[in-house]
């Protein structure tokens, strides 16, 4: 199957070479960037709004393919600029799609790279934007200006727009990530304050002993999502969170020395594995955690049988929404800031950072880059940023007497929360994956940029159960359960780009494979064999070149701290 694809790719290449000849030689990307810019210049000298449709392709989470103008937001933006988008999402495997796209050179006008940025940059898929921004981008400069140095590429030019250019800072009130626990347990034990991993598993055990069955099915103590190919980090990451580090990918970075140490093979990982191994011996761990796919995982979480699980909120959005819709507050979950020992300060909330390894860029195949840049610039006007986040006044949000944005009724809330309505209005398509303010931004008038960050909106959506739980813990919002993030100027380290095919990339692929093989087996084996299993794993692990990787990340972190992104 792949042979076929590679051969086809080869053919496309040969044809391209034959047709393009030498004229399309070394500086193809430069040539492409200059001429269309010039062309765009003449074609759209002053606010050309003739109707045109461009292609937008996203490697992000799959959604329905749509014409931008079929949504309320897309229609409004089309009225302003005349530009419509044929928005398409990845179907199937991203690596393969990117490979084929690159080999054939068949790019849409703009691409949201998601995880494929390194590959696309390597292939010279994007045009440099500096000149265009200089000419047409006053708003781009206003929003991205302070961050330019963080996403300049090696040649000193800008090629794409990341999504995290924060203007001001407001934190997320409904933060939910980490060790989730079913609310009925907290209720049953009268809302105990638990902070350590031992207490957490102890509570799960007590409850499971009392209630061995839920709705006629066996109760599941603890589950996580490490079965699917790309989700194994769900099992790897808790070790660093438990030790009091934020999500820095595969490493933990020392606050003082800025040295990056691998999570894999660390004492923290051993401790985390040992706890799971113990819990498994007590029948608390769902062995299917390591084999099930996403659908099965989400179905399990909504069944009410699972007492606790570890996940990031974005992994389980569907399950949490469905549970909320079902209306039984006791069967819903709340995430707690669990750590190894008392006294460790939890760092589940990401520190303000800048993710610079993905974004949306204009490709070398774009017909009129100048017009697209103008579209982006128009999109970054504050009124349009309100449009993509809050929508239209009195339709999808209301403004109270103090000028604060909020929802006046459930109908307005549903425009944002109901998947179908949010698709129709266009929030789903336009509120992310475009040049935009960062999530934690504040609007000029003091309102939060994202509805999710507006305290008024957060409390509007709280159910009776939410309010009771928050009151029991003496807080007003869920994020108050967690510690505030410490400043980490390199954050997040997971956005450090590894070069394609480099030793570092080779190492991390091999290390992940090794962990996928050893860790689940280690957890499910009897505790008597744990030390032996761990030694076996470490033996294999130590054969890999972990030093190169750690040195590489350390250097990049130190560069970032020094301001060199």
């Amino acid at each position, binding site marked *: *199957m*792949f*042979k076929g694809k*590679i*051969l*086809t*790719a*080869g*053919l496309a*290449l*040969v044809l391209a*070479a034959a047709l*393009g000849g*030498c004229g*399309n*030689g*070394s500086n*193809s990307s430069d040539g492409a960037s200059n001429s269309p810019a010039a062309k765009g210049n003449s074609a759209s000298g002053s606010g050309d709004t003739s109707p045109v449709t461009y292609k937008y392709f996203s490697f992000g989470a799959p959604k329905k393919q749509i014409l931008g103008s079929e949504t309320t937001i897309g229609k409004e933006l089309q009225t302003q600029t005349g530009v419509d988008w044929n928005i398409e999402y990845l179907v199937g*495997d991203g*690596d*393969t799609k990117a*490979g084929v796209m*690159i*080999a054939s*050179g068949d790019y849409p006008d703009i691409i949201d790279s998601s995880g494929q940025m*390194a*590959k696309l940059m*390597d*292939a*010279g*898929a994007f045009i440099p934007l500096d000149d265009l921004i200089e000419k047409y981008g006053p708003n781009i400069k206003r929003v991205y200006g302070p961050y330019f140095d963080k996403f300049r590429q090696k040649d000193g030019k800008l090629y794409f727009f990341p999504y995290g250019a924060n203007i001001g800072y407001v934190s997320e009130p409904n933060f939910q990530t980490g060790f989730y626990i079913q609310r009925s347990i907290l209720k049953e034990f009268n809302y105990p304050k638990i902070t350590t991993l031992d207490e957490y598993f102890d509570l799960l055990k007590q409850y499971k002993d009392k209630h061995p069955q839920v709705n006629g*099915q066996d109760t599941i103590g603890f589950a996580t999502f*490490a*079965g*699917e*190919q790309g989700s*194994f980090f769900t099992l790897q990451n808790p070790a660093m969170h438990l030790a009091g580090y934020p999500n820095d990918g595969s490493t933990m970075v020392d606050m003082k020395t800025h040295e990056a140490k691998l999570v894999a093979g660390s004492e923290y990982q051993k401790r985390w594995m040992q706890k799971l191994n113990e819990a498994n011996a007590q029948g608390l761990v769902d*062995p*299917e955690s*390591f*084999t*099930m*796919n996403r*659908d*099965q995982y989400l179905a399990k979480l909504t069944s009410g049988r699972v007492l606790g699980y570890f996940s990031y909120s974005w992994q389980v959005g569907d399950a949490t929404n469905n549970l909320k819709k079902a209306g039984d507050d006791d069967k819903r979950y709340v995430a707690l800031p669990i750590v190894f020992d008392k006294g460790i300060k939890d760092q589940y909330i990401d520190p303000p950072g800048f993710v610079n390894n993905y974004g949306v860029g204009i490709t070398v195949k774009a017909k009129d880059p100048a017009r697209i840049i103008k579209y982006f610039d128009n999109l970054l006007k504050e009124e349009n940023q309100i449009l993509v986040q809050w929508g239209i006044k009195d339709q999808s949000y209301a403004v109270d007497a103090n000028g604060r944005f909020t929802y006046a009724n459930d109908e307005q809330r549903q425009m944002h929360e109901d998947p179908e309505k949010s698709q129709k209005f266009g929030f789903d398509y336009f509120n992310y994956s475009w040049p935009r303010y960062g999530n934690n931004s504040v609007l000029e008038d003091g309102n939060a940029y994202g509805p999710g960050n507006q305290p008024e909106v957060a409390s509007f959506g709280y159910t009776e159960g939410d309010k009771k739980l928050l009151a029991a813990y003496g807080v007003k919002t869920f994020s108050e359960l967690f510690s505030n993030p410490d400043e980490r100027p390199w954050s997040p380290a997971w956005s450090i780009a590894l070069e*394609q*095919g480099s030793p570092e*990339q*080779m190492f991390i*692929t*091999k290390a992940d*494979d090794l*962990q*996928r*093989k050893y*860790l*689940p*087996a280690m957890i*499910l084996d009897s505790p008597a064999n744990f030390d032996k299993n761990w030694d076996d794993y470490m033996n294999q692990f130590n054969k890999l070149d972990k030093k190169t990787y750690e040195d590489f990340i350390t250097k990049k972190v130190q560069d970032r701290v020094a301001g060199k992104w």
Partner: protein
Amino acid sequence: MNQTHLFFKRLIQQKTLAFMCIPFVIWAFVFKYLPLWGWTMAFQNYKPARSYSEQEWAGLKHFRILFEDSTFYRVLRNTLVMSTIQLVLGFVTAITLALLLNELKNLIFKRVVQTVSYLPHFISWVVASSIVLTVLSPDGIINLLLTKLHLLDKPELWMGKGNYFWGILGVTQVWKDVGWNTIIYLAAITSIDPSQYEAAEIDGASRFQRMLNITLPGLKPVIIILLIMNLGNILESGFEPQYLLGNGMNLDYSENLDIFVLKYGLGMGNFSLGTAAGIFKTVVSFIFLFSANHIAKRMGESRLF
């Protein structure tokens, strides 16, 4: 001289046929021969979107990486074992089913069985693998059945045991494709002269003897041709089922060449390594195909060419 003369005479006689062939010759050339040019990628440090003259030549580097990697031998073993299982099981079950179906006298029942058995062929692997995962999950029907029958004390995590993987995959593939594979044998059976059966019946051959001495020999040419063709694909153990059913715990047994290429080739943007693995596969397939064909020829059996 006479030879060429004859050739042109026949060419002119059959000019319509010759003309009809031209599009397909072009098609074969463009899609099957021109892409061979892409093989040069395996000998370069290939970077996409650069012209051919700018590529950096790397000699046999990528082949060396491939053959020096211990993972490669593991995935090679998995590929060979899985496709052998698939080949043997596929043949045995399909031929058996065809023979059994052929003996059925009740036409309606025969049609129903045939339809039901080939339906799974039309389900995509994504759906099929979800069905398999659900059936084999700790709360799934298999575990329920086995525990209720007291054959198992507690539910088994079937997908978490590497040594079960090949078996599970084999059974899954049979379930999915047996009906489909049967069709060609059923078609071949209809071409067997019915008078042979009648003669055998008069001679007092039982049903089983007829099956063994008439139907099976009648199928032999088809079986051998299919076997030769499938041997050519010995390194094509499939990609989707392994990718979708595979997880960390059965990694040692589920990862095959295609997944290896995806991970270390396409996944890392290392197209050269992927091509090198592709060439390796082609060479092995070529050897298998030709030796099988040669053996068939030696044994005086029907063959591919």
